[in-house]
């Protein structure tokens, strides 16, 4: 570990639990629909007029729906260490929530090591350094083979 302080790159979107982080969503108390990012004013289910929600931690494991990478540095507001290093991106399907969530894949894992259906787990990694603070973001990390 280095001496840097740590802070979330986006406030309130995930827990800062280093070992078992969770994305923070909400769930409609009437119909049970999940929302990420958190929704707290109206339910988007057309058959539900609920206005009450509970905050929930989303499942921290799921399976790859699809994946790709970013070979070129994205434009601002993307922030990344220099020089730019390509990174993989995964869309991961959460079984309980029946929802697909996008995110970067952990550093060092390329598209050649990924496949549709592969189990993934959520971890936190540094997105960028801001002064003496590491800004952390959720990323997907392989958690075993697809078959």
């Amino acid at each position: 570990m280095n001496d840097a302080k740590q802070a979330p790159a986006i406030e309130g979107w995930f827990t800062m639990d280093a070992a078992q982080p969770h994305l923070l969503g909400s769930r409609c108390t009437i119909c049970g629909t999940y929302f990420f990012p958190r929704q707290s004013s109206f339910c988007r289910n057309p058959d539900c007029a609920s206005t009450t929600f509970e905050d929930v931690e989303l499942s921290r494991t799921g399976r790859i729906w699809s994946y790709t990478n970013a070979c070129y540095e994205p434009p601002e507001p993307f922030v990344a260490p220099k020089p730019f290093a390509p990174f993989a991106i995964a869309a991961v399907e959460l079984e309980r929530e029946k929802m697909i969530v996008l995110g970067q894949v952990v550093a060092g894992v390329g598209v050649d090591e990924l496949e549709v259906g592969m189990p993934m787990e959520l971890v936190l990694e540094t997105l960028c350094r801001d002064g003496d603070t590491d800004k952390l973001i959720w990323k997907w990390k392989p958690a075993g083979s697809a078959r």
Partner: protein
Amino acid sequence: MSGDVVVLGVGMHPWGKWGRNFVEYGVHAARAALEDAGVGWRDVQFVSGAATMRCGYPGYVAGATFAQALGWQGAEVNTSYAACASGSQALAAARAKILSGQCEVALVVGADTTPKGFLAPAKGYRPEDPDWVRFHIGITNPTYFALYARRRMDLYGATEQDFAAVKVKNAAHGAENPNARYRKRYTADEVFASAMVADPLRLLHVCATSDGGAAVVISSTEYARRRTRTPVRIAAISTVTPRFASGEVEMPDIATDSAAATQAHSFRASIAAKAYEEAGLGPEDVSVAEVYDLASPMELDWCEYLGLSKPGEAEQLLRSGATRIGGRIPVNPSGGLACFGEAVPAQALAQVCELTWQLRGQAGTRQVEGARVGITANQGLFGHGSSVILRR
């Protein structure tokens, strides 16, 4: 059908990176469409513009902007904005006006001037904006296109050769189109030699943003009877929203709807389904299609959403040569977005222009022989999409 309206005239301003005011392209296209229709500007009773968000206030009120540029003559006016479906919504507004008997002939126009470089959101710290969030963590537009392409590879055995073949086919189509921005023919090797952007998408797979304009003159069947004996009719315009829970991984969202309390629906398939239902036609009736190839592999997805092939079989359709001009069901005979680049408010109308020329037998070296029914499809941000069916 009595519920039909007729496409009397179509016109375009060539796509490019001309750097001029979008109104110039719109007026050029409008005059071409009016001339093609044999309708005078003063005879137009309703002007329906597709808005652009990138050209200031005149773009937000595009219908009035074009009407003023052509010369105020007292027509009623409308402006529609629906991202990539803007042109179709402007067309739908004009059709409704005619079908309700409030006017006989209407002009529909869309045009855009696009900035250079990436389209990126405003800066600062704005986590309430999903567009800001996804750029902040490095997810750009090609990411979304690539996710669909990669899924086809893992699920259906699509190959990089297939994706290159779509580009090669559409480039060959567009080479014959004087309105296309890119008219170079490509080989598969040239596609493979272009840089990887978002695996498996290469630079030559991803469409550019362009300047351009397109216009359509439509009228009642009664009005058209005095002007043409071979009318091309609008049989359907679908501009449906998604149905919750939308199963599509969509720009700019970081997560899909949750289908925990309901079932997931395919938005893209529902766009075409509504058009077929309205037209009383099915995929087996279609002779030619213009679809939204924001990236070349997406054409394969659209072939399936339109029912031109079963899910997972679009690669076979492509490999058989069916989607080339001369094949059983040519797709993107105009060259598609690969050859045009995207001029958002003009694109859906450009698709209608191409199908009109195809159904009239006026597409020259791009002609799809015997074309009788054509379908368009596009889809954009925030739940917008459209499909238009034309028939001879």
